[in-house]
């Protein structure tokens, strides 16, 4: 699988390249700043891009902005954003176009190689990978009346895992229930959040969006 990596710290960049190559990814470009990231994304149209939020020249949110711009030019381009911090504001902006292939994780999730590579593959195949920290903060928020309040505790748990981007099988494993039970919960969730039934996988993304917009 062809990947583009953007990270300004050489040590971390090399580490990511090595990690991905050990898992059968091919790094077509490894860049260290915003403008060359955008060029690399548009030129190579990789199957997945792994992008640090803070990049030169501005050392602010260059990575997020490059990712959004690249997805505007190449719709659906899968981007996994890594950051020292996860901010809901940025998570929303990444998901705003309502299509999948987006991830936003804390940098130290890389430590858990299996989990991290799983997230990269999920994003590459058009899924989402939201950091548990974003999800956790969403769960603790909100006393106001929102559609999310209609969910049962179990359904909230399922939605939280779904928002991280996990498949029904993975959710079933995490909650130690059958896949059928998870499927029933997800149907209820979609129903309660007024998401129309369709064959489109992106209902999961929409559910995450509904979650974020709480």
């Amino acid at each position: 699988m062809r990947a583009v990596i953007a990270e300004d710290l050489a040590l971390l960049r090399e580490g990511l390249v090595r990690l991905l190559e050990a898992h059968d990814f091919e790094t077509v470009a490894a860049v260290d700043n915003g403008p060359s990231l955008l060029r690399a994304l548009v030129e190579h149209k990789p199957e997945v891009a792994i992008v640090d939020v803070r990049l030169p020249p501005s050392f602010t949110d260059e990575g997020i902005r490059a990712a959004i711009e690249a997805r505007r030019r190449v719709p659906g381009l899968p981007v996994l954003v890594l950051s020292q911090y996860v901010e809901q504001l940025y998570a929303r902006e990444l998901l705003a176009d309502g299509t999948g292939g987006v991830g936003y994780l804390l940098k130290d999730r890389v430590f858990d190689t299996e989990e991290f590579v799983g997230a990269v593959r999920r994003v590459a195949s058009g899924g989402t990978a939201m950091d548990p920290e974003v999800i956790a903060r969403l769960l603790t928020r909100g006393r106001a009346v929102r559609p999310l309040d209609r969910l049962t505790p179990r359904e909230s748990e399922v939605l939280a895992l779904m928002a991280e981007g996990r498949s029904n099988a993975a959710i079933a494993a995490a909650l130690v229930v059958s896949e059928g039970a998870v499927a029933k919960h997800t149907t209820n969730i979609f129903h309660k959040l007024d998401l129309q039934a369709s064959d489109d996988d992106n209902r999961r993304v929409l559910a995450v969006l509904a979650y974020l917009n709480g």
Partner: protein
Amino acid sequence: MKKTFQAMGHGFVWFWLSIAQLFVWTLAVVAICLIPVGVGIYLTPPLVDAHRRFADRARLLAHDWSGVAIPRPYLPEPVQRPGFLGRAERCRHLLTDRATYRDLLWGLTDPVVGVFLAAMTFALPLYGIEGIIMPAIYEVFGDMGFNDWYTGIHVWHGDPDAAWWCVPVGVVLLVLGLKAAPWFERVHGRWTGGLLAPADAAALARRVTELTRSRAETIDASAAELRRIERDLHDGAQARLVAMGMTLGAIEHLLEKDPAKARLLLAETRETSVRALNELRDLVRGIHPPVLADRGLSDAVRALALDSGMDVEVTGALPRLEPPLESAAYFAVSEILANAGKHSGARRVWIDLRLDEGLLRIGVTDDGMGGASLETGSGLRGIERRIAAFDGVLALSSPPGGPTLVTLEIPCAQ
């Protein structure tokens, strides 16, 4: 017409205040003159204070009635020692304050200029009325031996024609008096302001005192902040890194002998590193939140709103401002939001951000139960002190039952 009658009423009050003030003024001057014989040292402070109360009252009325804002010009009082020496020092302080002499100058001239201006608001219309009713009263006046002239018309006993001449003159004077009453009031306000406002030097001295205080507070606050950061690093991330180093040493040792144990320790070390990272992250958030650094105040406040447990709506957009100012405003908003969540039981909060004419205005309104006060809310005091370093002010409106509105205004040069 309402304004006219108001001005007349006000003029009437002014008039008597000026007269009363003159008595106190006389006593105060006598007290100062008695200082060389000792008695004055006891008499001066209370009498000068009493005179200041009159001046304060005049400042207040000038503001309420004529819209002239007159700041208090007095130098800050030193702490008074007990006994004779303390009183002597108090006297010295009062006599070296230039505002005392400006007050006394006002006290001397106000009974002339002030009384004239104040009296004009009601005396001129009353005089006009006297002219209008002159034909009916001139005989009584004459009998009582009063002055028998009215605005250059000689009204003598037994000449009704002359009295009738007074009527049109009285009408003119009445109309003129009614028209001019608000004007006289305004002039009076401005005249009071001219004498009772701080002289430039006094204003500068006050400013220096304020700045010295806010500088001291800022330095204290940042020193405390540095101590907190140092302690957090020392007890948190630093300690964890040391522990990780030690565990790694143990793992090195166990690698050959007991690989299973080594694997267990490795997992533990990884967890420790995650915890150390979390602590560093929280610390950085507390110093300089990432969104604030990346995007500036508007988006940082939006991010705060998203993380808040309440339903927070943010309106308005700001350009990038000076980083220290952005940071101070951010932490102020953050604390106000936290207060609203903790104490007021609010469910919804509205935050309005605006920048006009070099003034950053932030309004935070919540639908909570109100009752917040600057006296009891030490958090609000802290915010006030923090933004005071930028000459910012905090206004609070929080009646019991709500809603609470906190407004921050911070000047910022663009």
